[in-house]
C-alpha cells in the first residue's frame, strides 16, 4: 500500500502539483488519468523518487521514502518495477539479457536459476520466442511486454507504468492492460498506471484518480465514473459525440 499526502511540486514559477493526497491499495490497479500536461508523469516520478516534491509525504507500507537513508532507498528500489512510456529496454542487450539484468545485479541466484527465472517471466508475457532478439527488432507492443517481464523479474511489491498503451493499437493495448491487471492480482502488487486511454479506464480501473490543474479532481472506480457529475471529468472522458451517445445507451440499458 502506498500513501501520499499533500504533494506539492513546482518547476520554476509553474506549480504542477498543488497538494495531492491519495491511497493506493495492493492487489488493485490504480489509474491516474488526466489531460496531457496535467502532471501525471510528474506525480508518478515523485512517487517513485525520480523527482523530489517540495512538500508532502510518500510512504510505502509505512516507510517514508523522501526522508529515507540512501542505502535503504537503494534496497527498496529492488521492490519496485517500472514500465516507462517508451519501454526503455537496454539496447546493448538481448531481450533475455534485459530480463536477466535485475537478477544479475541484485539476486544471489546461480546462473541457471537466473536464466530459468528470466524465461519464466518471458513466458508470463508470452514473449519466449523473442528471447534472443535485440530490442530494436521488436514491435512496440513486444517491447512493452519485454519491459513488463523485466519489471517483474525480481518479484516487485510495487509496479508503476507510465502510459503503457501510448502508440499501441486498441487490441494490443488490451493485451498489455490485461497483463498488468493479471500480474497485479496474481502477486498482490500495488500498481499505479498513468493513462489517457479510455479503454483501460473502463477495463481495469479498480481505483481511478482524475488530475486536473494539478489537483485531484475526482476519485472512484470504473463503475462510478459513468455516473459522475464532475463537469471537467465528463468533458475529459466524453470528449467526442460518439462516446457521449455510447454513455447514454449504457446508462439507459441498465
Amino acid at each position, binding site marked *: 500500500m502506498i500513501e501520499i499526502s499533500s504533494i506539492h511540486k513546482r518547476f520554476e514559477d509553474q506549480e504542477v502539483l498543488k497538494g495531492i493526497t491519495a491511497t493506493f491499495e495492493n492487489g488493485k490497479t490504480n489509474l491516474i488519468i488526466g489531460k496531457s500536461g496535467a502532471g501525471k508523469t510528474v506525480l508518478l516520478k515523485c512517487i*517513485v523518487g525520480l523527482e523530489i516534491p517540495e512538500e508532502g509525504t510518500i510512504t510505502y507500507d509505512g516507510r517514508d521514502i523522501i526522508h529515507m537513508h540512501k542505502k535503504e532507498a537503494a534496497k527498496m528500489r529492488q521492490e519496485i518495477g517500472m514500465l516507462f*512510456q517508451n519501454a526503455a529496454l537496454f539496447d546493448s542487450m538481448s531481450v533475455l539479457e534485459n530480463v536477466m539484468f535485475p537478477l*544479475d*545485479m*541484485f539476486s544471489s541466484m546461480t546462473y541457471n536459476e537466473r536464466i530459468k527465472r528470466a524465461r519464466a517471466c518471458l513466458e508470463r508475457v508470452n514473449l519466449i520466442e523473442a528471447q534472443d532478439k535485440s530490442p530494436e527488432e521488436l514491435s512496440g507492443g513486444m517491447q512493452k511486454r519485454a519491459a513488463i517481464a523485466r519489471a517483474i523479474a525480481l518479484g516487485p511489491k510495487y509496479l508503476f507504468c507510465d502510459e503503457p498503451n501510448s502508440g499501441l493499437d486498441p487490441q494490443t493495448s488490451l493485451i498489455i492492460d490485461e497483463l498488468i491487471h493479471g500480474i497485479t492480482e496474481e502477486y498482490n502488487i500495488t500498481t499505479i498506471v498513468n493513462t489517457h486511454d479510455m479503454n483501460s479506464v473502463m477495463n481495469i480501473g479498480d481505483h481511478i484518480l482524475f488530475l486536473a490543474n494539478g489537483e485531484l479532481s475526482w476519485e472512484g472506480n470504473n463503475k462510478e465514473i459513468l455516473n459522475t457529475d464532475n463537469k471537467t471529468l465528463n468533458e475529459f472522458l466524453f470528449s467526442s459525440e460518439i462516446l457521449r451517445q455510447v454513455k447514454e445507451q449504457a446508462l439507459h440499458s441498465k
Partner: protein
Amino acid sequence: MFLFDSVKTFGSYLILMKRVITPPQRWRIFFRQMMHEVYQLGVNSIPIVLLISFFIGAVICIQMKLNIESPWMPKFVVGYATREILLLEFSSSIMCLILAGKVGSNITSEIGTMRVTQQIDALEIMGVNSANFLILPKISALMAIIPILVVFSMAAGVGGAFAIGKFTGIMTAQDLIVGLQYEFNQWYIWCSIIKAIAFAFIITSVASFYGYNVKGGSIEVGKASTNAVVSCSALILFSDMVLTQLLMQ
C-alpha cells in the same frame, strides 16, 4: 557570467565523478563491461592510431629534412628531431586529441541516447548507481589500454619516418637510424604514457559527463557530442601544458 557558468559546470562534473568513483555493485558485471569497453574504445581505435601515426611520422621526417638540414648540422639531426617530436608530443597529446574526436563523441552519444530514451532512469529505478555502472568501466578501460596505443603510435610513427627515408631516398637509412637512436632517453616514453593516461581520464570522464546530462532529444545528443569533443580537446591541451612542465623539469 561565463566564469560563473564554468564554475557551476565544473562543480556538477565533480559531483558526478564522486558518484562514478565508488566500488562497483557487482565486480563480475563490472569486469564484463570493462572488457567490452577495452575492445570498443581501445582495440577498435588501433587501426586509426597506426594509420595516422605512420603518416605523421613520415611527414615530420620530410619537413625536418626540408627545413632544418643545413651544411653545419650533423646529418642525424633529422632522425633525432623526428623521434623527439613523436615521443614527446605526438604519440601522447596529438593522438589523444584524435581519440577525443573518435572515442569522446562515441561515449557522449551512447550515454546521451540512454538518457533521452529513459534507460538511465530505468537503471536508477532498479536501484543501480547508473553513473558508476555506465561510466566507470569506460574510464578504467581506456586508461588501461592507452599505454598500448601510445606504444603502437610511437612504433608506427618511427616506422613511417624510416619508410619515407628508405623509399624516397631523401636521406640514407644509416643517418636516420643513428638519429633515431641518438641520446635516447627512456624517461620520455614514460612521460608520454603518464600524460596519455591522464588524457584518457579526461576524454572518458568529460565525454560521459556531457552525455549523462543531456536533456531533450536527439538534437541535444548531437550538440552534446560536439561540445564534449571541443571541451575534451581544450582540456587535453591545457593539461598537456601543466603535465609537461611538471614531468620534464
